[in-house]
């Protein structure tokens, strides 16, 4: 029966969490990095390509969780894409493993400008617990030009979302000052 279901859907709470706000300071800093032309081109939506440069897969779990119905990313204009060629953002997780460095560089080369590189997770920020190993270069910044750091081990979906919203805000707001 359709009716009881419709009625239930009307009175039950939505599965999706209410939206949070992006931290103003981060937005201002990101806005500084973005040229006006880029803002016009990116608009208020972002296509994200996740690149795992050697994580423990904890960060991937949370990036995946970010795509579940509780967060409903697309309402913000955020969407994960399958190729760096379709991406505005490279969301990189894990330390920069030496065995992944070439693949990371190639992914960046495939990503059209204007673009953002986000290092998500303590490992991506500075190598995390793996810093100093013969097998890693360090954080993602050791291989790619990073625009935004999202710390956490792993960062929760809410923290990841906050960072991504900051990118959106930076694109929307007229340049500070």
């Amino acid at each position, binding site marked *: 029966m359709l009716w009881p279901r419709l009625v239930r859907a009307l009175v039950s709470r939505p599965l999706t969490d209410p939206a949070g706000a992006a931290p103003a300071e981060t937005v201002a800093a990101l806005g500084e990095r973005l040229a006006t032309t880029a803002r016009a081109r990116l608009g208020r939506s972002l296509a994200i390509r996740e690149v795992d440069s*050697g994580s423990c897969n904890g960060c991937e779990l949370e990036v995946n969780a970010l795509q579940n119905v509780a967060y409903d990313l697309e309402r913000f204009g955020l969407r994960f894409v399958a190729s760096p060629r379709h991406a505005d953002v490279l969301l990189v997780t894990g330390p920069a493993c030496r065995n992944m460095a070439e693949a990371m560089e190639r992914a960046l080369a495939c990503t059209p400008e204007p673009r953002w590189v986000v290092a998500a997770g303590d490992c991506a920020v500075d190598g995390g617990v793996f810093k100093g190993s013969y097998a890693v270069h360090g954080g993602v910044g050791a291989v790619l030009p990073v625009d935004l750091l999202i710390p956490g081990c792993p960062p929760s979906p809410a923290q990841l979302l906050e960072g991504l919203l900051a990118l959106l805000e930076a694109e929307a707001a007229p340049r500070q000052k």
Partner: protein
Amino acid sequence: MSALGLIRSGTPQGARPFERFLLTAQAWAGLPAALAAEPSLALLGLWAEPGTVHAAFLDEASHAVLLASAPAEGGRYAALSPARPGAIRFERAIRDLWGLSAEGAVDDRPWLDHGRWPVAGPMSGNPAPRPGAEPPQPEFLPVEGEGIHQIPVGPIHAGVIEPGHFRFHIQGEVVVRLEARLGYKHKGTLGLMLGKTARAAAAFAARLSGDSTVAHGWAFAAAVEAALGLEVPPRAVALRAAMAELERIHNHLNDWGFVCNDAAFAFPHARCGFLREGVLRACADAFGHRLMMDRVLPGGVAPDIAPGGGQAILAALDAVEAEIPALLRVYESHASLQDRVVGTGFLDPVHAARFAAGGFVGRGSGRAFDARIAPGYAPYDLLAPAIAVEAGGDVDARVRVRVAELRTAIALVRRLLMTLPEGETLVPLPARAGEGAALVEGFRGECLHWLRLDEGGVIRAVFLRDPSWLQWPLLEAAIEGNIVADFPLCNKSFNCSYSGVDL
């Protein structure tokens, strides 16, 4: 002499709880032939330290675990791969990390070493500097036949998954051979653990494979405690098991959803994702971390479960349990979905047994092994969970094992939380020498950890073996003869860890 007899004739080294026997190089050289004649002795792992090679075996009849070692004279030891195909990747990794070569090995191509590290043999004790030479092109096993072509995939994949390279040889639409090339995520984890105290090194075990952070954290802690002869408080034992079962629940939900999604069936994926999110949030309430990372420590658990955390978990599990029947109905009643999962990615029980595949990969192909039951460890000795075994060997069989385990795990968590003993959760570690090992059943299968501590309580030798070591090679067998389009489905139904085996 039988392989078991050969190993037991070595000198006991005082490792706990599984004894390690030191063999002469000559006795070790007799192992391949003895193993070939004794299929019931399964190889669980093979690793090294400078100048010595170690192996772990499971006697499938008695479920006893025993370790064997031998000196690698002149940097060489007798390969076990002619008798145990599961040894192949270990032998390749041992050459790359410790610089020891396996004589008579089935495959001597590099594995973890892609020619991009600044040194060769980083764990060998005297790593050789390697000035920036061009990394060599990987070699793949050849395939002959008419109209064969190759599809290279990765290391970066299209979804949010870990990096690795898959080389498909295809005839028409059919996969003739798949070969995985991993090692992209090698982080030097084992090397970073050496010289650290057990407490400091626990962070690396917890980050071997994030989805199994509790299981690996527990296996590491249990190996340390075995080495030190330390008892952990009963409350810590119960909390460890509760966290390990919650980890099983969130991963099983995740992969069940993803398998359906890979068959273009988004509804179960959305529901499983939502239920799983509820479980993770409850874990955060109870333990202060969604994945419960760094909660299991050598000596116990810290912090203790938060007030109200138990209720949050029980509520989340009620929601999961209430929806499983409806989800199962959806899964079973849609022909388009069943058409994709039934008969797809068939893993022959013979192969599963030859590789001693653990977890739902083994149990989906009739291998009834679960480390919680045998060799067994507390608190499961009192809980005795039912083992789900399916004989089908296909994607569907692996899914069904996992759905059954979801239900068992929910019941286990409830019992553990309702009968949680009072008392402390963490005891200090005595600084003393010892050697220990542990087998802990994660959601993917048994995690085997081994280590040796010196008098100061510092790690001198260590190996962490994720269950995926013995499952990855079987994915290559399971995909043979399937169409390329079914690969994501097969891959997800195995869900092997990349980070776990890349070390």
